[in-house]
């Protein structure tokens, strides 16, 4: 992996600037299409964001998010259709409840909830998708590396 090379080479040089790992779960119908829209409109956003396509935001098990953090993700963002616009009618309403409870619990356990974000992005909001991703990457960069939820054994 490219990242590995950098760490080896940098042992003597100045530490490389922190490049956060961001996983974005995007529902196929709105947000993934919105991400495609951002691309089609050539809206730039940081390369740190890697998108995982899911049929609906309600497919995203909170366990996936925890796993991503455990594996070393610095930020996780979940994007779905706006409430009321779900392709599957009700999926994102469940997502909203599931993630509200998860966020609250992470907060309760003293884990930075800013590392997890939920955004509703429609297929027509390509520009907004790029803006959200840019601001999320900025936010995570400012927060620094995720240490609280990270399992050090997973470090590659």
């Amino acid at each position, binding site marked *: 992996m490219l990242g590995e090379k950098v760490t080896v080479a940098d042992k003597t040089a100045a530490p490389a600037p922190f490049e956060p790992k961001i996983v974005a779960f995007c529902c196929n119908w709105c947000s993934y299409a919105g991400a495609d829209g951002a691309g089609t409109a050539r809206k730039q956003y940081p*390369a740190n964001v890697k998108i995982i396509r899911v049929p609906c935001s309600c497919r995203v098990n909170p366990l996936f998010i925890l796993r991503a953090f455990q594996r070393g993700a610095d930020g996780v963002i979940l994007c779905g259709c706006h409430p009321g616009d779900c392709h599957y*009618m009700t999926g994102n309403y469940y997502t909203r409840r599931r993630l509200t409870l998860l966020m609250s619990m992470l907060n309760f356990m003293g884990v930075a909830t800013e590392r997890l974000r939920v955004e509703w992005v429609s297929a027509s909001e390509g520009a907004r998708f790029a803006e959200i991703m840019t601001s999320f990457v900025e936010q995570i960069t400012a927060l620094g590396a995720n240490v609280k939820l990270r399992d050090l054994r997973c470090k590659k």
Partner: protein
Amino acid sequence: MQKIGVFVCWCGSNIATTVDVAQVVAAVKTIPNVAFAADYKYMCSEGGQELIHKAVQDYQLDRIVVCSCSPRMHEATFRNCAEQVGINPYLVEIANIREQCSWIIKDRAQATAKAIQLAKAAIAKVRFNTPLTPGESKVVKRALVIGGGIAGIQAALDIAEAGYKVDIVERQPAIGGRMAQLDKTFPTLDCSACILTPKMMDAANHPNIKLYTYSEVEAVSGFVGNFEVKIRQKARSVDAKRCTGCGICTEKCPSRKTSSEFELGLKTRGAIYIPFSQALPKVPVIDREHCLKFQTGKCGICSKVCPAECIDYTQQDEIITEHYGAIVAATGFDLLPLDKFGEYGYQDSPDVITSLEFERLTNATGPTEGHLVCPSTGKEPKSVIIVSCVGSRDTSGRGKTYCSKICCMYNAKQAMYIREKYPQIDVTVFYIDVRTPGKAFDEFYRRAVEEFNVHYIKGQVGKVLKDARGGLTVFASDLLSDKHLMLHADMVILATAVKPAAGARKLATMLTASMDNDDFFTEAHPKLRPVESPTAGIFLAGMCQGPKDIPETVSQAGAAAVKVVGLLAKDKLRTNPCVAHCQENICSGCLACEKVCPYGAITAETKTVINLAGVKEQRTVAVVNQTLCQGCGACTVACPAAAMDLKGFSNQEILAEVDALC
């Protein structure tokens, strides 16, 4: 051992300029199980697909990863390609290195690194992919058109002509929509009713078309090929079968104070009424809110005078449940309410009117029988000012950000027919730009200026005030001569922004069709699939998809009809095999999954299962109906034991991606 083939597309220069495809190929080659990797200029081209075929044969590949554009673009292409060489189409994964990589990153090193990671994630996922086989579902050979304006009528006629049954649901008591309200149409100035009425007749009389007027869609369930729709047919209080449309009831009705919806409040109507003279079906309806019989119990005159004895005060709303293979949304438009635009004096003066109201004022069947008079005085105006872009192209939040598209043309049209019928009336149009692209459109606008001496002033109106003489004082700007103007007018016409019809959002939710922020239905692809909603089986016609004029609406309706016919012509549809399934030995039967399923696809069944101890036992487990399931995955998360999983997006597949990206 799995043999994965990875194909990296240049997409001409779209990917190759920012992503070093050779480096991507080199990087993925080092990954275990990757038996072949190559790059190619256009993977979606015949040459690209041949490359896949050849590699599969030469290297006995059993799984394929294509690093290319969005799977929303070419996933189907590559799945078909794989199928042709005997690989199950669901053993193909796409890494989106165009929309989500080369197009959003300028730095070549960064883009290449991201492309490699996306490729790795796709490879990680494809390892866990399992061969899937689509099922089949039947197609109900009947279409539903929602909205009975010109878009809906045209779509229904075209579908019916192709030999399929089609129902139109219209919430007003008659079909015709906005076009029925117009006086003339551009760019030919022919009478709107003259060209619409025959189409309305055709629709009403077509053996394949059924009209549900005064009806609304109440609920939609099911999916492409077999939607179940509940239609509420509101009580007309008139037996439509026996009514002859003589209209005696409407004449004798003593309640006359209700403002007519069709006449946009410029005229009143009775409590029992036929919305307009050419209405189809020509059956009156009782507006129960304003009917004396319903409100006070006394009256009943309409019932007494009806020669066909068809007035029925006891009629109830009726819910009709019908199945459809395809649905066309053709819900049309409304005008933007002007309450936020106080400066134009629309609320203060009856002589400030919208363009649509003007259409009624000049229409021979309208409230003034076509005589153009000021509503306040009943006298013919001496000067008329038309203001364009009222509420359109507005990013300040008061109006709509888009151009309403039709106004420039109808401004010219309206100016022309004032000048044609009343050459003594002075007409001035204030504009920001005059936008008249289209066949014979610009010529039409120029005719207004050159032949009809309509004054076009580049500038806008800033304030309209009632003046002492009963007229209107209009403050405006003339940008070309850099002047501030104070003009007198007797009538001001506001070319008001269009917006999707009220209730469109509610309908979209029922249809699970997506909408943009302005509540226009979104199309599956803005260029290549402009009449389809991203939701399979839902098609779009007319203003509900975006501002458009009549010719465009009619073309779009025709196009939507062809798409519907293409769908209905099939006997069976392939269903999406990416559906939920339950691992019964783990399922505890708590049925949390059943409660979150929006399709009723999960049911409880008492079954004999072999439990984890290897013992047969009878217990309740969740069972997924593979045809009803649409694959959202809500159930998979509701299940605490992870007994419920989603094919094509399984826990293992998604986690493999997570692990590859982290």
